């Protein structure tokens, strides 16, 4: 399955890119995170503490155990600080 994966704020800076296309076998967000962590150290470091991250599937906030089926765009980012 091909996914657009987006990173924002300090996660974007640590990983060094804002958006990439990822080919994955994962069925959940957690599974995708495991695959990313296994890639390179910058991913391992960026995803070291999931409690400090949030995830959106197709622009809706979800939990890390949410299934990926049918998803097209996954975004990872720190807690929001708008307003």
């Amino acid at each position, binding site marked *: 399955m091909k996914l657009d994966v*987006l990173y*924002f*704020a*300090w996660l*974007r800076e640590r990983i060094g890119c804002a958006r990439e296309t990822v080919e994955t076998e994962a069925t959940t967000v957690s599974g995708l995170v495991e695959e990313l962590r296994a890639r390179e150290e910058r991913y391992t470091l960026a995803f070291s503490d999931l409690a400090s991250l949030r995830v*959106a599937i197709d*622009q*809706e*906030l979800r939990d890390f155990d949410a299934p990926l089926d049918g998803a097209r765009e996954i*975004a990872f*980012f*720190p*807690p*929001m*600080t*708008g*307003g």
Partner: protein
Amino acid sequence: MFDIRVQGAPFDYGHECARFAGGRSDTGAIVTFCGIVRGDGALETMEIEHYPGMTERALRQIAKEAARRWALGGIMIIHRFGQLVPGEQIMMVATASAHRADAFAAADFLMDYLKSRAPFWKKEMRKDGTSWVAAKASDEDALMRW
């Protein structure tokens, strides 16, 4: 009913307040909130990043939820992104209702949800370096009021 704008350009808070309140004889209570970049001497620039697409969607969902909970005649949300300097207006919300309690509660609710559920991130460029603003536990806790 909803006027939601996400923009890089400045907005004119006074003008938007006047426009929002104008011509309303059905809804007697207007509440507005405006957020301003707070300067502390060391802050040079604040940069606001957002998630185009999801931002508008999240703000619309928050506005819809407010309209479901309270009897409102209108909701306005404007939020900027990009570089801002201390004293600049970052964002505003406005609510209109027949009753002041509804207008106050809805504006307060919009701010709490916008703060922790709309995809904006603030980065501060300070004299001694740059850093991302950390989310406050108190902002997350504020959601439990509703």
